[in-house]
């Protein structure tokens, strides 16, 4: 295993150094100096939201994109392929249109299984840097529930993604909670069915797991204090033995979140006499917390990896992070790569857990060191006056990346500050 890991890491180092050297050769033309080195430092994190049909996966995706498509509340924004932008904005527009009270986007067909690949970008002056990529799978919830078409290739695709995910989101339909609290026995039945289907897929996961309660706006009547409301929902979920066990097992060495989200926001929709969710004509969509689940992915992954290490290795990495800041861009690239050979670096890569982490080990190592230095509140100098164009460009990229990681971490932190019950277990 170590030999294989070593080969992957070595390949990563060679690729990174080649890319950096390539970026510094003025006679080659093409991208600006440093660009190839930057491109080589953009990792992709795969996220899968596991949820039953009608639980709100598609609308969460559309609303999340709508919220993060511009850097209005954070330094970063999401970019996507033109066709995907059209789909996502189309879903959001249909959802937000109150001229048709009952017109919600239809459910996703199995054939519409699709990877949405988002670039997380931020601007520094006139330059836009892509810091990382987030890959989300959009699929029909029937793949989790319908045993009739067991040979579906789409199901195989879904579970391949689950196995290689860097983060898993368990989607819990807030509408079912509302149904249960309104006295409809179907709500309780479906809630337990949801947990009984999701928990077996999540309990063996080595990556961070968060639970997302959708349709949070439909639960506003539970209690006027939002944290008390979330605590009531948490207690309801914890009454399921499987859910309780999963939280107990996972919260030992990782963050387990309970994130309430509303794709449309408070007051936008209500439940009519027949139990259908209908829009209020005079309301406007004001999504709530939809940006948190995705923003928490990378910080939670790094936190989990660090929590998996013993105190000595953690201290070694923090010391390395302190030195890391003061190195020149090229040296930083080299040392991050070299750290992957050291005991603390190898332990961290193992803790990150996936073969993909090993391939891009030096890239993740650099991101990790930057994020730890950021948490420790350490500042860093800019590239020296003697730095070349490529080094200045890489230095700017690293600064932008650090800001993005800081803003990503701020979102779940703000949620936790406002709703302490969003961290499981919290009693």
């Amino acid at each position, binding site marked *: 295993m170590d030999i294989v890991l070593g080969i992957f890491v070595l390949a990563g180092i060679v690729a990174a150094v080649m890319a950096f050297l390539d970026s510094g050769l003025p006679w080659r033309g093409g991208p600006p100096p440093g660009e190839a080195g930057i491109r080589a430092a953009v990792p992709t994190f795969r996220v899968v939201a596991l949820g039953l049909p009608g639980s709100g996966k598609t609308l969460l995706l559309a609303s999340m994109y709508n919220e993060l498509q511009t850097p209005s509340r954070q330094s970063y924004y999401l970019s996507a392929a033109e066709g995907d932008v059209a789909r996502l904005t189309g879903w959001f527009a249909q959802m937000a249109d109150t001229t048709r009270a009952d017109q919600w986007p239809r459910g996703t067909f199995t054939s519409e299984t699709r990877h949405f690949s988002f670039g997380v970008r931020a601007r520094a002056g006139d330059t836009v840097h892509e810091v990382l990529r987030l890959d989300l799978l959009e699929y029909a919830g029937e793949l989790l529930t319908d045993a009739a078409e067991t040979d579906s*290739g789409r199901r195989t695709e879904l579970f391949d993604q689950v196995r290689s995910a860097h983060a898993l989101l368990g989607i819990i339909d807030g509408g079912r909670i509302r149904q249960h609290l309104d006295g409809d026995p179907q709500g309780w039945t479906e809630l337990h069915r949801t947990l009984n289907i999701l928990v077996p897929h999540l309990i063996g996961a080595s990556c961070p797991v968060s639970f997302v309660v959708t349709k949070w706006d439909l639960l506003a009547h539970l209690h006027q204090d939002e944290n008390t409301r979330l605590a009531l929902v948490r207690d309801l979920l914890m009454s399921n033995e499987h859910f309780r066990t999963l939280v107990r097992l996972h919260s030992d060495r990782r963050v387990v979140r309970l994130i309430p989200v509303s794709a449309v926001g408070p007051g936008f929709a209500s439940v009519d006499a027949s*139990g*259908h969710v*209908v829009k209020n004509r005079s309301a406007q969509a004001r999504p709530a917390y939809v940006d948190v689940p995705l923003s928490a992915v990378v910080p939670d992954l790094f936190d989990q990896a660090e929590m998996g290490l013993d105190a000595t290795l953690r201290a070694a990495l923090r010391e390395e992070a302190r030195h890391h800041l003061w190195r020149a861009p090229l040296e930083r690239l080299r040392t991050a790569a070299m750290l992957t050979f050291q005991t603390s670096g190898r332990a961290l890569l193992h803790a990150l857990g996936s073969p993909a982490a090993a391939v891009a080990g030096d890239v993740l190592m650099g991101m990790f060191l930057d994020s730890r230095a950021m948490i420790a509140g350490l500042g860093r100098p800019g590239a020296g006056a003697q730095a070349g164009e490529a080094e200045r460009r890489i230095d700017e990229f690293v600064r932008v990346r650090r800001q993005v990681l800081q803003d990503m971490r701020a979102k779940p932190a703000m949620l936790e500050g406002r709703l302490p019950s969003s961290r499981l277990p919290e009693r």
Partner: protein
Amino acid sequence: MDAHGWPKTTDVHGWPFLIARGHRAGYRTLLAPAPLLAVGDHTVLADHVEPGAVPDRPGVIALTTPSGRPISVVHATRQVSAADLGQADAPRDEHGRPLHLLYGFVCLHARTVTPDEADLRTALTTALTVYRTFLANENGFATEAAKPFPLRSTLEPAAPERHRAVARIAVAAVVLAVLLAGLRWVGVPDEPSPPGPAPTVPADTKPCPPGWG
């Protein structure tokens, strides 16, 4: 007929299919051609036939089933109306979303189809009958085996498997020869291109002629 009960020549019949969800039950194949259903090949429909944006406008897609049979699928999408079910209000699922049908017909062995509107209407009539039965008993419903109906659409037969295999090998050989010659001429490239993503749909979808929908 071959060992699977498939016709050896181009079939001039269409086999209706329907994929839909109910008030509570999720999307599933409710109606599928009997020969596909018999060997479990019907999953190719739910996996690869995508809904269209324009109601009742047909699209045509050529697919290969899991057992390797080429088929052509003429498909259309429709939001279920109150009139479709003979009721006062437009039906919705339990989450308040509209119900949609993904319906059409399958041509066994054909690779090219120019669909006739009348054939799609026939498929819709059959699909709606099955759909009403499904809504009456969503939990107890089992996928129905569709019976064929004579087509007015224009079909062209699929090339025989053996001929196509020979053609593929010939094309691959030519491409390989050109690549090898190219490599010898320019030397080994220092930055090989990364491989592209693997295709998920075995063949392309093409739009239908104007005048539909």
